[in-house]
């Protein structure tokens, strides 16, 4: 992949060219101080931090909603909340975690690390970068404010199937649509910026096949975003028209088609779930070689597998709709394409494991999270393979088995990868190592909590518990109690995560430029913490042997 040992001369070149310490000092004096600085910043590192802080805040808010759900489901019967509010919680939890926590988390990492990994001074479009971030707090403030509006917030699930989300929706739905439009624009602009940066600002001598897998997976993810976010924008605009302007896109009584909504939604939605996992593949593919002190087994096949998954993601959407009554041929087509995804996904898992084989492995916190990712994501992959079998899916569909499946790929999948990335790059961001002992506590509590939370859901689903219900039959009681206990353990463990981050920002063991012994990528050639401006003159990598 990237340089095994940083090209010394190049590094010095870039350092001296980016100016002496004095020059930096003069330049930085021009920066505003206080909140306005953060509002107006165009620096990729500052915007990256803003994204990450935003993501973490949304993770805590969405998590608090999950805990309300788990509290209600702790026992059969309605104890804490009424069904209307329960539905608002499940909906908001999903929307906030998907659009507010996971996606901005990955964009934050992209902002920080892509310029550093390709040797660029900043993102290609810094002002656009500022705009795409600041759309998010506005969008999510608006989205959260719907909870206080008459009739309550969105209560139709994060998939907002029409006509429940149109004719039968609360009045606040128009605000929900507006919020989602803003989040969507933010994603599209962010994706444009990432593509422009990767394709135009790579250091001289770095070909596409020399990039780190994190950069590669983000390049592919950004194309997915540009392809599907407009579809989401289209479908919510059709909802807007149905609700406010008397059209009948999704209203059967007016000649419309509720199933059309689902086709459009999932044509966006399935690539969307890969948008939330491809960057995770990239992160893990960077961390595992570092701590195994060994090159990634198959760099090229990882790139091709990622691209295959991305292409397949456009051909599988209706596997979310096996029960809507598709024609047999369509059902078979989507079953086969969905099963096919297991092949490139398998290639990835085999590559990670072969990278570990005959390595020299140490278990620092980022590695622990990355290894847990491989195991638990694979479990989520297995249940995904089961769900692909259409006849069996009639039994799994819309049950807790599905809830277990997508939480395994999203929580110990995507979220763990973000945590691994944070532990991995905190030394670069702050100049300090995160507290290893607290990190381990955070890891073990999270890994136990997350499995206690989501594993019993497989059983509850197979035994017949539908998802999105505020109360359940008595035979599901034990599984739900276990899940709730796991949920609280996992939820409160995240306070430890915040503490580790705060502690690391404030101080700790000083990290050198190359903070991890086995790390070889370009970001480890700049000092820790990374100065505000890096690679103002690109490092010259011509003639450098990456592989």
């Amino acid at each position, binding site marked *: 992949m990237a340089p095994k040992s940083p090209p010394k001369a190049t590094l010095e070149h870039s350092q001296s060219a980016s100016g002496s310490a004095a020059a930096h000092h003069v330049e930085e004096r021009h920066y505003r101080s206080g909140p306005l600085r953060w509002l107006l910043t165009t620096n990729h590192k500052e915007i990256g931090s803003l994204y990450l802080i935003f993501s973490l805040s949304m993770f805590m808010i969405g998590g608090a909603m999950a805990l309300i759900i788990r509290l209600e489901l702790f026992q059969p019967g309605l104890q804490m909340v009424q069904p209307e509010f329960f539905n608002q919680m499940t909906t908001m939890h999903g929307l906030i975690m998907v659009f507010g926590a996971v996606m901005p988390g990955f964009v934050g990492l992209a902002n920080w690390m892509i310029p550093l990994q390709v040797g660029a001074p900043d993102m290609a479009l810094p002002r656009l970068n500022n705009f795409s971030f600041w759309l998010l707090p506005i969008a999510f403030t608006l989205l959260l404010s719907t909870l206080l509006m008459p009739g309550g917030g969105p209560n139709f699930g994060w998939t907002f199937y029409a006509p429940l989300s149109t004719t039968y929706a609360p009045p606040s739905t128009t605000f929900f649509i507006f919020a989602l439009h803003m989040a969507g624009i933010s994603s599209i602009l962010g994706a444009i910026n990432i593509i422009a940066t990767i394709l135009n600002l790579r250091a001289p001598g770095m070909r596409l096949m020399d990039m780190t897998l994190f950069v590669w997976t983000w390049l592919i993810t950004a194309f997915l975003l540009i392809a599907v976010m407009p579809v989401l924008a289209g479908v919510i605009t059709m909802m807007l028209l149905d609700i406010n302007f008397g059209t009948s896109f999704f209203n059967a009584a007016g000649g419309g088609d509720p199933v059309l909504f689902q086709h459009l939604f999932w044509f966006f939605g399935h690539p969307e779930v890969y948008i939330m996992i491809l960057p995770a593949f990239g992160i893990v593919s960077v961390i595992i070689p570092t701590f195994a002190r060994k090159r990634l087994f198959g760099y090229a096949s990882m790139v091709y597998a990622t691209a295959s998954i991305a292409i397949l993601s456009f051909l599988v959407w209706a596997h979310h709709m096996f029960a809507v009554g598709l024609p047999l041929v369509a059902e078979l087509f989507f079953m086969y394409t969905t099963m096919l995804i297991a092949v490139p996904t398998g290639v990835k898992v085999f590559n990670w494991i072969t990278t570990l084989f*005959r390595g020299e*492995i140490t278990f620092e916190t980022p590695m622990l999270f990355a290894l847990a990712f491989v195991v638990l994501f694979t479990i989520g992959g297995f249940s995904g393979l089961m769900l692909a079998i259409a006849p069996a899916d009639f039994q799994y569909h819309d049950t807790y088995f599905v809830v277990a499946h997508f939480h395994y790929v999203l929580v110990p999948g995507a979220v763990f990868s973000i945590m691994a990335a944070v532990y991995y790059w905190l030394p670069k961001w702050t100049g300090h190592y995160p507290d290893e002992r607290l990190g381990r506590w955070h890891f073990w509590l999270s890994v136990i909590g997350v499995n206690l939370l989501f594993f019993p859901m497989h059983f509850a689903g197979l035994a017949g518990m539908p998802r999105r219900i505020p109360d359940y039959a008595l035979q599901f009681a034990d599984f739900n109690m276990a899940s709730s206990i796991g949920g609280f353990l996992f939820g409160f463990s995240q306070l430890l995560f915040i503490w580790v981050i705060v502690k690391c920002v404030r101080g700790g063991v000083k990290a050198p430029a190359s903070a991890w012994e086995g790390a070889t990528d370009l970001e480890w050639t700049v000092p820790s913490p990374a100065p505000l401006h890096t690679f103002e003159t690109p490092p010259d990598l011509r003639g450098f042997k990456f592989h």
Partner: protein
Amino acid sequence: MRKMFTLAALLASLDSSYSISHASDWNMPVGVSQVSRDVYGLHMIIFWICVVIGLIVFGVMFYSLYRYRRSKGAKAVQFHEHTTIEIVWTAIPFLILIAMAIPATATLKDMYDASESDYDVMITGHQWRWQYDYMGEDVTFFSNMSTPREQIAGTEEKGEHYLLEVDQPLVLPVDRKIRLLTTSADVIHSWWVPDLAVKKDAIPGFVNESWTRIEEPGIYRGQCAELCGKDHGFMPVVVHAMEQEQFDAWLAERKQEAAAEAGGVDREWALEELVERGEKVYATICASCHQAEGQGMPPTFPALAGNQTLMDDLDRHIDVVVNGVSGSAMAAFSGTLSPVDIAALITFERNAWGNDTGDAVQPADIQALVSP
């Protein structure tokens, strides 16, 4: 393919031999139809495939983590890319998937063949109850959850079939091919009975088709599987499968009741009589949105108690109930409630919770309106 099913059966028996309690407490039910057994077989095959792959993959992984730790003095051996291995680990999963797709395709084809049915039942989803219509038999009724609200609130002890019991189950004969036609009157619902391995979305404007042939008499319970609003968790499905003779007797009885019901339209009803009947209709059909005391849940579900717009305008009130309100959650009830029930319901609403209009709406008038 035959081999695959034998394998599945073997693995399934393995599974049940060590399961701690009744299989369906932990696992998918085997069910009571050939299709449900086929589906269970597919589920178990793919499950064991995943287990075996998992054991191998995680086995190698944990071996590597244990064996190649730096603390044990491991030294990294730099090797990468091996074409043969990479082809093998792409091809093997591909072959396994093809082997899996063959029986899955056969089962799916079978599930889609609803031809030559003995009985056809139209299932209509409503917020939040099911309606069953025995097509060609003139028998139709609603199936409401019968679990008392006190049990849900926790003021009463929960019964054995908490949330999975209804006032009138779907009654079906065993060993007959039943074609199930699902549709919806409002939002999307999904009709699901795990023991039959039937789950089909009920979508407004669409009629979906599925079928079952139940092999054992019994009571099979399921739930609505698609989020359909506030009381999505409270619209169970109960199927009562019985022998043909019992079913015939039951059907005859229902037909008689329907005939008796139709007779009520022609006579003059007293106010008290209408209110008494209307109160029951209100409790099962209307109270989930407009609430027990008619206070509603504004802004989505308007209050009926003290609703002057309706109380001052009887025709408007009748119009709302009969035809619904376009573009809102208020459904048209002309197709789902009998003229007697509609008349009784409107009379009740106009004479309850301080709405003292004294109006008595006659079923004959509604009948004239619905089918002029």
